[in-house]
């Protein structure tokens, strides 16, 4: 049986972006660049609905 790994791959990518954004948030915080902190914080928050959307689209794919 051939499966679709697209969902898993896409979600892996989202998690990768999550790691990057979290790291950048903390870095910017210590550099006192608070606008950048907010930017990456919001990006990180947006990634969650995105992940959920991918999940909903991919969960029933055989």
């Amino acid at each position, binding site marked *: 049986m051939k499966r679709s790994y697209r969902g898993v791959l896409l*979600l892996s990518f989202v998690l990768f972006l999550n790691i990057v954004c979290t790291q950048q948030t903390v870095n910017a*915080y210590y550099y006192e660049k608070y606008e950048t902190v907010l930017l990456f914080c919001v990006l990180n928050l947006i990634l969650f609905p995105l992940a959920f959307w991918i999940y909903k689209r991919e969960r029933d794919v055989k």
Partner: protein
Amino acid sequence: MDQGQKGNIPFDEDNYTHNIHKDNERSLDRRSFMKLMVGAAGVFAVSTLPWGAIAAKELAGFSNKKYTAAKITDVSDLKVGEAMEFAYPGKHDSALLIRLGEDEFKAYQNACTHLKCPVFWSKEQGEMVCPCHHGVFDPKTGAPTAGPPRRPLPEIILEREQGVILATGVKRYET
């Protein structure tokens, strides 16, 4: 239920979990794995919230961040090439004052920018050294010159008044 198992001992699946009947309980399939990944994305999102909240607070109350001047030491108490520890701006923000020359004083908050170990002044090397992972900082600028730290130490603004060294603020990072 029983029909399938009659005369079928040991069970087909003799793996100690044959009595779990709940759906999907025994297998981590692709769908639940994806669910797990979505959950992880959620955890990441939530984990950045505190940072964002503090940043927003800093941005909102940016202008009223004031430092009060504090006396560190008398000039006569610190020989050239020596250093001393003090705390600024808060009681627990340890900092390091170095007398590089007759009239040259430099002070930095000395929590290492790698993992917060206290950085000390090495007179022999003429550098600030972090004992934890051998991070090295330039005493003239606070910039890291070796080891894992990547961010300069925050510099403390000094003033000299009648033989007394005062701390008046902490420099912000440029750019």
